[in-house]
């Protein structure tokens, strides 16, 4: 199904709330989350051909919103202060429940994380997605998702050791 500017406005009602919810969790505040939602849908209005119909719209929106959040995190001038407690070691063996402190630490790490790992971190820790679901959004195999989570684990462990 190809998008048109008219259909984007209709899609807003169905997909903007979920986009806001996820952006709010990743970015940690209402204003930034609302701006991400606005940016995503205005971009779709201007270039509806971005969606080629190769996946379901929820899958597409998850990917677009994640990238918009990551771009915003990297562009932020004022970074969140790290919570100077034990940095969580991330990866599929860790407790996936995010406390506010863990969320803040994870959020501050996103900007310096390799892009591939940052997206997986959001899907796994914030969205609570399975390997299969993440594979669907990333258009890769579940095995590759497992590899990415191992790399995420290793990356965060190295960071923890840094002074």
């Amino acid at each position: 199904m190809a998008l048109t500017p008219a259909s984007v406005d209709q899609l807003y009602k169905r997909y903007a709330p979920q986009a806001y919810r996820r952006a709010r969790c990743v970015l940690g505040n209402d204003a930034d989350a609302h701006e991400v939602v606005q940016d995503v849908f205005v971009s779709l209005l201007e270039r509806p051909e971005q969606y080629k119909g190769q996946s379901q719209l929820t899958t597409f929106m998850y990917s677009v919103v994640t990238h918009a959040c990551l771009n915003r995190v990297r562009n932020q001038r004022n970074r969140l202060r790290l919570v100077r407690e034990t940095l969580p070691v991330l990866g599929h063996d860790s407790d996936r429940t995010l406390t506010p402190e863990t969320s803040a630490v994870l959020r501050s790490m996103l900007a310096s994380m390799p892009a591939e790992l940052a997206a997986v971190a959001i899907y796994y820790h914030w969205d609570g997605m399975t390997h299969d679901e993440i594979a669907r959004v990333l258009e890769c195999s579940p095995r590759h998702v497992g590899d990415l989570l191992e790399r995420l684990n290793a990356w965060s462990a190295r960071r923890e050791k840094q002074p």
Partner: protein
Amino acid sequence: MTTASNDNSRGPDCLSDFTIDQWMADELSPEQRAAADAHVQTCADCKARITTIEAETAAFLSQAPTLAVHGELIRELESARRKVARNRALLTLSSGIVLAAVVSLVIFPRPPLESEPAGTRTKGSAHIDFFIKRGEQVTPGASGDTVHPGDLLRFTYTSRQNAQLALINIDRQRATVYYPSEGETSAPVTQGEKRALDFSVELDQQLGTERIYAVFCREPFQLVDVIQSLTGPQPNPPDDCTLDTITLEKAPLP
């Protein structure tokens, strides 16, 4: 009121938010849908999560039902990015009344204010509206409503002109500034209809009648001065200002 939550504390067999979103968008295959329905039937955590997401969706769309309205909303959020903390420094008046600096007042300048009964407003004048979040339910509120400790309130304002605004809650014991969230003077707001104020307030345990005053003025004003004028026997806002009042009765949960 826009809220958003994230909850990954459910069990390993529970539905992810991704699956719930697909379920709500009717994107699951018949087999996937049947499996999801069967799981939700027996899982209180997933039922609760779906209820939360549905409530948050309704709250989001009530504030920004279209893309155009959403654009206006974020412009307001850009100029009001603060949230009110529950506990603020207290302002002590010379009269000895201790006021909580949480409430903000919005005051609009207009022809001399006629005395209005609490909870009423002149048609077309600047005013505030609000939403009540209780548990997972979000509903529009109105003056005269009964509210409960723990309820969350979120406000919008309507004004035909730019102004200075403050919202102040006055109950039997104290005055609390809701908006602006910090400082001792009013906050500027731009003209508009049902513009969201970027803060929410959780009602405390103090029961009884509460009045929330929204004071709109043309010029900036000191919060202490307005609070003093509102805590007398008859609310008496400054000249060239508009006062809107919401009266709530706070009672224990049934």
